[in-house]
């Protein structure tokens, strides 16, 4: 019965998604005629309007839409091979957070809509099908936040470009540095079984083993996990000095709420998403439960205003959400930043072929300063410039503030504005 229900769900969801996406495209002005030679540059993308990734996907999509609006308002995007500015048209479909639906729709973007370049939906789960398609069809993919290590581990690849985050395995490097500086040796690691989280967990395990340490707890759970009651007890039983939980936002929320509802206190807790979605976490977990926890610092926590393309952070905040700057989150920035990467690629492209457009990015590699930092790619297309320092959430009034406590690069030392408070005080 379960199998029948599940299959029916999948099939009906796919049909629904195709119908819905067909309607979505029809609703886009001029979308049907948007092709490579229609006097516009077409950028294809997917977003998740529903499902478990909607929380992260929609703000990212809003950031990309904002970039399109900005660039068109400025008269279009400069396309070097054509020696003129072109308007940008976004062709977008709703994948409903389902990788199977996403696979169909990514293919549709390339084969039916014939977009010039395409942009992946949020995160590694929804990016994975796009990476395969980009490599198979030799079509340039701008991957915003799909930082799964496996996407970039098979040698040089000109067709996938990670725009907003370092590859997952690189993220935890400063975390290990911080743990080491705090002389923490008993580390518990809980991760969700997906490319993004597994890569981080494995990286930390690798870093620790170089120091002769072994995590006292190292377990994976399904990405759909929502009940952490017994897991928290199992972790507690290992008496860790630090607990690192790598999940997506819903996992982080459920995990932190479980700690709160059982009055469980650990001296060091790191979760990845409170830094990216502060408003959501403040609402769903509460400031008190976040106090003294750690997370990666991303814009707008990182305030980068010295840029040579697009808007600096303060300008972005003011224009993206006038009067509501505090509601802007990292994923808005990431969507916009992906647009800037596309803009740079076309501005320096050597031809309109996929490799010609990719060559545009090679020309500016390491020189581009965006509101996320230095845009630098390695040969596999992985982002190696925009590294993330570690921040601690400290009580501030009725809420909390992010304090950067450990840099990811020597250049970020100037950004450090507090010393990590360890052990974390009890609420």
């Amino acid at each position, binding site marked *: *019965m*379960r199998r*029948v*229900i*599940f299959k*029916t*769900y999948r099939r*009906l969801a796919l049909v*629904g998604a195709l119908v819905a996406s067909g309607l979505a495209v029809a609703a886009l002005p001029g979308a049907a005629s948007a092709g490579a030679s229609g006097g516009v540059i077409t950028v294809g993308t997917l977003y*998740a*309007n*529903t*499902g*478990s990734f*909607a*929380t992260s996907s*929609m703000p990212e999509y809003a950031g990309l839409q904002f970039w399109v609006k900005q660039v068109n308002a400025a008269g279009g995007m400069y396309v070097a091979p054509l020696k003129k500015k072109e308007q940008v048209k976004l062709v977008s479909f709703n994948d409903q*957070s389902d990788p199977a639906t996403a696979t169909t729709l990514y293919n549709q973007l390339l084969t039916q809509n014939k977009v010039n370049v395409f942009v992946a939906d949020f995160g590694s789960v929804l990016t994975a099908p796009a990476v395969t398609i980009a490599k198979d069809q030799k079509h340039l993919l701008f991957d915003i936040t799909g930082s799964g290590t496996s996407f970039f581990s098979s040698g040089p690849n000109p067709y996938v470009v990670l725009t907003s985050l370092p590859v997952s395995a690189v993220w935890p490097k400063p975390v290990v540095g911080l743990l080491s500086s705090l002389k923490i040796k008993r580390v518990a690691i*809980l991760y969700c*079984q997906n490319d993004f989280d597994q890569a981080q967990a494995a990286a930390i395990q690798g870093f620790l083993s170089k120091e002769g340490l072994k995590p006292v707890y190292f*377990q*994976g*759970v*399904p990405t*759909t*996990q*929502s*009940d*952490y*009651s*017994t*897991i928290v*007890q*199992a972790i507690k*039983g290992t008496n860790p000095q630090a607990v690192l939980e790598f999940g997506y*936002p*819903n996992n982080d*929320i*459920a*995990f932190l*709420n*479980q700690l*709160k*509802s*059982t*009055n*469980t206190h650990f001296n060091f807790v790191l979760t990845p998403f409170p830094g990216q979605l502060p408003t*959501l976490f403040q*609402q*769903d*977990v*509460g400031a008190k439960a976040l106090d003294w926890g750690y997370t990666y610092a991303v814009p707008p926590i990182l305030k980068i205003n010295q840029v040579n393309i697009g808007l600096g952070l303060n300008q972005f905040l003011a224009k993206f959400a006038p009067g509501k700057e505090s509601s802007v989150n990292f994923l808005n920035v990431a969507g916009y930043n992906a647009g800037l990467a596309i803009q740079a690629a076309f501005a320096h492209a050597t031809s309109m072929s996929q490799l010609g457009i990719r060559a545009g990015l090679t020309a500016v590699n390491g020189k581009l300063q965006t509101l996320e930092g230095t845009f630098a790619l390695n040969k596999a297309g992985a982002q190696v410039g925009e590294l993330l320092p570690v921040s601690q959430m400290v009580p501030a009034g009725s809420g909390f503030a992010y304090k950067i406590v450990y840099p990811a690069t020597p250049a970020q030392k100037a950004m450090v504005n507090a010393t990590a408070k360890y052990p974390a005080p009890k609420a």
Partner: protein
Amino acid sequence: MRLFEYALISGVLYGLFYGFIGVGLNLLFGVMRLVNLAHGDLVVWGGYLAYSLTTSAHVNPLWAIPISIPLALVAGFLLYVLTVPRLRRSPDTETSSLILFFGVSQVLEALATMKYGTNQVTLPELGNPVTIFGQQYAASLVASAALAVPALALFYLYLYRTRLGLATRAVMANEEEATASGVRIRLVATSAFMIGLAFAAAAGPLATFMLGGINPTTGGGLTITAFTIIIIGSLGNPAGTAAGGVLYGLASSLTQAYATAWTGMVPYALLLVVVLVRPSGLFGRRVRVA
């Protein structure tokens, strides 16, 4: 040993809640052979009602339970009148209901997205943790189990101590024979449909705690879990549903403790074993077909 004890108690508490989730679906499938794919979405809407009450009126989210029951009874009656008689005339009621309720599920999900957005929403914890044998459990977990027990008892009383319950069981066992014996099928079916939906909505506020929050798509997974539980426990038997829930909760909790990576799989492996060894479920009776 402490972890085993925690996993055991936590598993039983969660299991009772899961039993609560399964009861309404059990009734609908048992009486009318309707595969209500919208069951989980109704649970989610119950959760959203609790969220609305908490955020707008600042009252205890459990008030949503008594409020949701009459609302669900009315909604159940309307939905029954509009859909079920036609469904039951179709040559393959189960398949038709699968498709129809998939549509209902999608509509409910879309409405939830429009009203509440796509973000996860949570409810404030009900109180300080409760200490059982020296270990602390979330107040909401204990409250969920404490509410699930009387709900399952009420379901039992309805089925075994009322005339309507007797008629319901007769329909579950054999609809044709029940009709021949003068059972008013329509009354039984309408009642079962309304009660089933009321149970789903009433479980909603608890689900919001138990699942660490809800979002518009939470319902799909809940429906599958509910089906798993009623198949493990056996159709039409409230004790079976409770036992199915507890077994599911224990399997999930013990796996979390000792084989975390298998958490998503073990409860369904359990389902496979039960279906292979005892196709009628743990509490199912063997039926002799003459």
